[in-house]
């Protein structure tokens, strides 16, 4: 916990220092050419840009710990508010991709374990190797071409069709539409998510499949599986009931790490599909030199990564009976 906190402070310092050396004056970019030097100075003072570096950091750090991330320069709105609007979209996307990746990868691992020493195993292994090599960026664009252009069955951009969007109470559209049993909106949201989720989830699925299969094969060689086999259990039940739970450990740890990589991947994937999430907004913030917004977003990402690591460790303990009932 303490190391996590130290890491987060380190992230804050790095990001703060990095942003102070950005060339180009953000204020100059946001005012009209007719502004007087006095106007510029007033604006600079408003955003605290006229103070020394260390002072800026102290002010900023105090504000951040109080939950105040300042106001976006380009969007002229509260950073916390902006993040609050966009983060749920990214979280829905990332969790959907996580669920897809783990389920698909897990299913493939179980299937290839059942298929071992058959010709089909080699086919699966080859495909798995291919999927492991291809990054999410390439997947996303290939999906754009296949499902968006060649066979235009899915919408290419956005989170949902603005024409048919209802008024949402929360920023968790997917959850909200499900709770409201508004299936038309739900399926529209899903249709928009399919391609980004595939792009993010396929590499994860490939890694999960590879690692889980290795652990499953190891578990299948244990004596307790042999005994269960002698008792007449079907191969599928052997894998699911006997081997799977003892094999998930390494996969779980790996999934935690991969999940943080995947959330990092949402930045470019959201950009490709014009998905209104945090990453997409982050790139715009960088292009617009919107320092407060960049700081806020990067810190949120850092906190998210650290939270995921803590959650992964906790889950690993929970799932291991040796650690849970020691």
């Amino acid at each position, binding site marked *: 916990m303490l*190391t996590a906190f*130290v*890491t*987060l402070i*380190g*992230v804050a310092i*790095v*990001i703060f220092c*990095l*942003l102070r*050396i*950005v*060339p180009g004056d953000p204020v100059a970019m946001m005012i009209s050419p007719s502004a007087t030097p006095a106007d510029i100075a007033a604006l600079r003072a408003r955003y605290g840009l006229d103070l020394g570096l260390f002072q800026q950091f102290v002010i900023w750090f105090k504000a951040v710990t109080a939950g105040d991330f300042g106001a976006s320069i380009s969007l002229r709105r509260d950073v916390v508010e902006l993040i609050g609007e966009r983060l749920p979209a990214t979280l829905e996307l990332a969790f959907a991709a996580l669920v897809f990746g783990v389920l698909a990868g897990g299913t493939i691992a179980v299937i290839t374990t059942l298929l071992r020493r058959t010709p089909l195993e080699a086919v699966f292994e080859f495909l798995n*190797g*291919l999927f*492991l*090599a*291809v*990054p999410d*960026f*390439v997947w996303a*664009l*290939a999906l*754009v*071409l296949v499902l*968006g*252009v*060649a066979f235009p069955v899915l919408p*290419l951009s956005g989170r949902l069709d603005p024409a048919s969007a209802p008024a949402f109470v929360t920023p968790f559209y997917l959850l909200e539409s499900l709770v409201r049993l508004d299936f038309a909106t739900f399926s529209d949201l899903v249709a928009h998510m399919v391609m980004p989720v595939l792009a993010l989830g396929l590499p994860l699925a490939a890694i999960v499949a590879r690692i889980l299969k290795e652990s499953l094969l190891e578990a299948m060689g244990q004596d307790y599986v042999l005994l269960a086999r002698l008792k007449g259990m079907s191969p599928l039940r052997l894998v699911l009931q006997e081997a799977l739970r003892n094999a998930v450990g390494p996969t779980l740890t790996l999934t935690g790490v991969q999940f*943080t*990589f995947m*959330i*990092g*991947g*949402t*930045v*470019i994937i959201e*950009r*490709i599909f014009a998905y209104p999430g945090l*990453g997409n907004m*982050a*790139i715009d913030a*960088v*292009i617009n*030199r919107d320092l407060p917004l*960049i700081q806020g*977003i*990067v810190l949120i*990402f*850092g906190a998210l*990564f*650290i939270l995921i690591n803590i959650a992964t460790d906790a889950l690993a303990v929970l799932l291991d009976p040796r650690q849970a009932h020691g």
Partner: protein
Amino acid sequence: MADAALSPAFSRAGGKTLRALLGEPRVLFGGGFVLLMIAIALLAPVIAPKDPLEQDLMLGTLPPAGFDGAEAGYLLGTDDLGRDVLSRILHGTRIALIVAFVAASLSALIGTALGLAAGFYRGWTDRIVSRLVDIWMSFPPVLLSVLLVAVFGPGLHSVIAAIVIIDWTRFCRVVRAETIRQAGLDYVTAAETVGFSRPHILLREILPNVVPILLALVSLEMGIAVTVEAILSFVGLSLSSDTPTWGGMIAQGRQIVYQGWWVLVFPLIALFSTVLAFNQLGNGLRLALDPVMRR
């Protein structure tokens, strides 16, 4: 027992290593493709049918050969500014390879130096390096690279610098873990008993045994670097849109995907094949060079 005290790298004959490499199909496939790319990059001005920068709006968005409206001489069609897609892809190989080799070597250099030091000296060195890696891993890499290029200003140097600043951690983590493992082996103890200095043991005894896994990582990193360059071009931060880069073409192709899918498809295939080749080469190197995994 005597073998255990010998450094594995020194008990391996050079010829045997070469045979192991050439016997690994992934190395042949991946390495062959990379050699082909190097040849294309060197010969691009000779083999490219057109000037990659030459615009001709009269010949905008021509489809590739074999499709309706294709124009002779434009095998893979043209983009919306009438530039030859094939020529731009061939010239784009140059940027891709420069980024791949320079960025991967530099990140390997920094990451290996820090990883060796942290893994061998442990203590404070290790604590600081490990914490630094933790902090670095808490940044979304794409966002950080975009940010860094924004800080440095657009251009090839910035792209390479951004990749190096982000990806040294990949090498550092693996090299550190491997160094810790190697430092626990008998040959290191033997070298200590003989009385070699610490730096000597690190550089002459341990480093050669880290090289196989390092080579594999470098190859994988080259694939990653090419992708990152494409991503940065895609975001519009890499090089000017004139310069032929695959990422720039992909970004352009994404925008006009309904009018000219080929502007996206062909550079994407080039990127995909390159990433795959570096990946196969890296995995093949690991299989062929790792004394433990070698059968």
